[in-house]
């Protein structure tokens, strides 16, 4: 079974600065997807960024980028130019490539990000 570990329960960053959230995972599969989701107080999970394991290039979405290290099974999220609206819980998640159609996600325990004005 796959596991996802987020070792930082809480992080804080000054507004406009850069912060990196860590995630490691364990799997015996060679093909899979990795995700970062944001969960604000409204509880709705919002997809931030997605990475396919077979792609060597790190995914980027505007101010959000990942550092994907497949051999190390590491998948960190970098948020540049942090904004007050970025404050939320952030969850790292794994999905097997084999289960096409069944988007069963395995989530980490989350990192609470606070933005300091």
């Amino acid at each position: 079974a796959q596991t996802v570990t987020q070792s930082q329960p809480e992080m804080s960053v000054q507004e406009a600065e850069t912060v990196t959230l860590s995630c490691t995972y364990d799997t015996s599969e060679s093909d899979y997807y990795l995700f970062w989701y944001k969960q604000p107080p409204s509880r709705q999970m919002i997809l931030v960024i997605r990475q396919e394991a077979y792609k060597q290039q790190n995914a980027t979405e505007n101010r959000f980028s990942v550092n994907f290290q497949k051999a190390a099974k590491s998948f960190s999220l970098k948020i540049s130019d942090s904004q007050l609206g970025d404050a939320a819980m952030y969850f790292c998640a794994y999905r097997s490539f084999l289960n096409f159609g069944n988007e069963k996600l395995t989530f980490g325990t989350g990192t609470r990000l606070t933005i300091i004005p």
Partner: protein
Amino acid sequence: GAGVSQSPRYKVAKRGQDVALRCDPISGHVSLFWYQQALGQGPEFLTYFQNEAQLDKSGLPSDRFFAERPEGSVSTLKIQRTQQEDSAVYLCASRGTGKTGELFFGEGSRLTVL
């Protein structure tokens, strides 16, 4: 609808009561998922539907949990004889067709069992 809608947003039940949680997925979305999120934890998979077929129910914690989607749209998660450990946020998500289709989550139903 515009997004995934869940009701009720909050439910308080006495231990032993039955509860039903409703999920209205995005119109036309074939796949529907239920997750359970305990306080301070990440969501955990409960069950998955493709249209009206329940293809995976491996995450349901006990036979007190039952989910259905009879017409392939609205889904109901039912918990019988609720216990305190059932207290959690229950998240519903739906997905359209396409290989990399994004999962869209609702705002969840927070269940508190007293």
